[in-house]
């Protein structure tokens, strides 16, 4: 079985670690200060049910984060000749059909195309990885889309 790996930028990792710590604290606070007294059956006590749901949500999220924190790999800025190629974390200026566009290549957890953060597992991300300024990558489907790399920075 292939083990899942999450590629994170330093900022992305810090964000996850911060959220994880905050959730653990929140859970402790809730348990110590809000545990409702159950007067009758736990299933019927709405306050208890809401409390239990809150705790379950926090636990589910902390479990997700724990998994990421056990399986992450930090994206390091490349050195030497690799600096000229598209690697994770690269800011890439491309030319597509005569129009320029900027995108950042990130791991799947940080991908957010609306912000221009493209996943390394998307067809475009996969095609750009390892390429350098001047290279043209083509993605074929019913339409051929060509990306010419104009600039790579970190």
């Amino acid at each position, binding site marked *: 079985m292939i083990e899942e790996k999450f590629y994170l930028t330093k900022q992305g990792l810090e964000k996850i670690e911060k959220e994880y710590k905050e959730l653990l604290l929140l859970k402790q606070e809730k348990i110590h200060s809000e545990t409702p007294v159950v007067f009758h059956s736990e299933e019927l006590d709405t306050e208890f049910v*809401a409390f239990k*749901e809150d705790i379950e949500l926090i636990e589910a999220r902390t479990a997700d984060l724990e998994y990421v924190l056990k399986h992450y790999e930090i994206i390091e800025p490349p050195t030497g000749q690799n600096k000229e190629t598209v690697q994770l974390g690269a800011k890439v200026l491309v030319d597509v059909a005569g129009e320029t566009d900027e*995108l950042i290549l990130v791991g799947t957890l940080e991908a957010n195309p609306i912000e221009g953060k493209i996943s390394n*597992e998307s067809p475009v991300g996969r095609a750009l990885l390892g390429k350098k300024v001047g290279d043209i990558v083509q993605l074929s489907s*019913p339409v051929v*889309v060509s990306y010419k790399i104009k600039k790579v920075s970190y």
Partner: protein
Amino acid sequence: MDATLKFLINVGQLKDRKRRGWIANQVPNCETTASHIFRTAIFAWILGKKKNLNINKLLKMSLVHDICEVYAPDETPYDPLLPANFESIKDKKKTEEILNKWPKLSLAQKKRRAELKYKREEKSLRRLLKGTPVAFQKEIMDLWQDFEKGYSKEGRFAKQIDKAENFLQGMEYWQKYGKIKRDLWIRWAKEIFDEPIIIDFIKTIEKDITTKKK
């Protein structure tokens, strides 16, 4: 009025709310937000099964992902560039020119736009849920935030299914009316999907729909 009844009446408005992206593209008799939500839920269900995801969570998430549009605008990637009254005859030509090209925004503009959209939608959702049972409000807010931020596997999957449904609808309109800029949509799909099951399904759409104009 009873808060739950008010909530249902408000959500019901989405059954008549035509999606702005299609209006801008001059698609005749285009779908509504509720129609999009309906097929997104079915789409999430059928593909989510293949990935062994929590279908209960996925379905709820799909159902609530766009209900904020009762009070928030249904934004398109072209919004910052489109004329304010793109529906007016006067601005139709300008709108067409803009839609013929990729929406060109800097990374800073994209980030700002995403932040503003999130804030507007969160505010709208809180307004919509006001007065409904607290546990219900909390559940919907948690599901919506998970969808928006991609906290869980289901959240990340549902977000891509939302876009995949949009892609399918766009390609159906292209096939039927030819109003949609197919090549730009295909480029968009190559950038936004990274979930293997969805990428495979996009290929199926491309093969069966985007090559055959009616």
